[in-house]
């Protein structure tokens, strides 16, 4: 029974992480950021995610036209690829935020029996 409970909780958390991954990444990238810094910001926000797919995700979002990656060679440090949101990315983020907030409110209501 305990095994089943653990399995269900793990599955729930996994689904939540998977479902919110794009929202998290797009939200952080409102401010243009390079790859490893993005990971740090997500860690600092204490958001758990399957980070080993972070880079492939960045590439996918870039190919979908949601992100734009540019090599920053202007700074004094080494060249780094900096990712920022495109107009499409911004508009998707805004829509996703609304959905998340509304959904969150509805869930809050139902679990608190308001």
């Amino acid at each position, binding site marked *: 029974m305990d095994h089943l409970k653990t399995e269900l909780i793990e599955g729930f958390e996994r689904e939540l992480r998977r479902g919110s991954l794009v929202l998290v990444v797009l939200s952080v990238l409102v401010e243009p950021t*390079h*790859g*490893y*810094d993005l*990971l740090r910001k997500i860690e600092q926000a204490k958001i758990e995610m399957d*980070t*080993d*797919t*972070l*880079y*492939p995700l960045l*590439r*996918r979002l870039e*190919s979908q036209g949601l992100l734009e990656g540019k090599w920053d060679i202007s700074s004094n440090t*080494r*060249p*780094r*690829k900096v990712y920022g949101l495109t107009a499409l990315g911004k508009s998707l983020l805004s829509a996703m935020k609304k959905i998340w907030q509304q959904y969150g409110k509805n869930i809050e209501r139902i679990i608190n029996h308001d």
Partner: protein
Amino acid sequence: MTKEGFLNQLREALEDEEVKKSIIEETIQEYASMIDDALESGESIEVFIKKMGTPKKVAKALAKDRPGRRSNRLTALSPFIATILFFLAGSLFQAWHPGWLFFLLIPITGILTSKPIQWRGLLIFTILIVFILVGTSTNLWNPLWSLFLLVIPQSQNKKNPNLNRVAMVYTYIAVAVYHVAVIYFGFSFVGGSQELRNLYLTLSLLVFLPILLYGFWNGSIQNILDLDWKNPKTVKDFLLNLTLVGGVTIGYLVLGFGWGLWHPGWLVFLIIPMVYILIGNKRLSLTGLMPFIATILFVLVGEYLAIPGQASAYSLSWVFFLLIPIVGILEKGR
């Protein structure tokens, strides 16, 4: 592991997944920059891997996301087309076997409709089809089995492209020469002289040893390109691959030479992907194993079960293929 070691492994993993060259170069550049960031902030490369994934995982995820991988109508229709063709071949021409080969249209359609086309996968299916068709019609299962050796030079060593070309040409010529020689002498040495038997065995050794050695050297047999012998996992993987592939090949040759069971003895080769599925998944996945189990049951029952009034039981044993969707549905619903 060092930064260079990680980047080399990543490059090889991306090449194995047939990721586009321009994407490989950019990925390597970006990972080099990210590793520098991690090292500068005092993290070790091991911590970086823990956070950003192993080279293999990254390459697999990138390959999965690549554009062009599409599932079109043809792929969706292929199971129905294969089933119709199988029944037509079976009921009209009593060709249940090898008519079941039509089911291979399903994975072949998948390969042909994905981009880039996985030529190595296509070659394996082509060899399998030639092997079964020619084997069934001529009963020359030996030396036909040696066609599978053609797969070895397809796994290329990235460090020496010239050697790859030589190995490829050598393998194809060697297999052709071997076939011609065995077929030519084969009819006379059945019950023939000791000299012909000796010639046959010597020819096998001379022709195939270099191919097998090349296979070990370039990593296509042990599936690892640069063996890190200090790493116990590498040694364990190498020994597992060697035992599995070697054991199954020896088992097949024993069945063939000992009892003439070249067919359906070739089914033992299905043990290899089954073992990889079993050790690759934490949980037992019957869905992944079912295509192999169904094929084994189909061929064994079709070959050996006697049905009155029927030349073979293939007209009945096809039902085992229904196990594939049934088990898939049952397992998914759990």
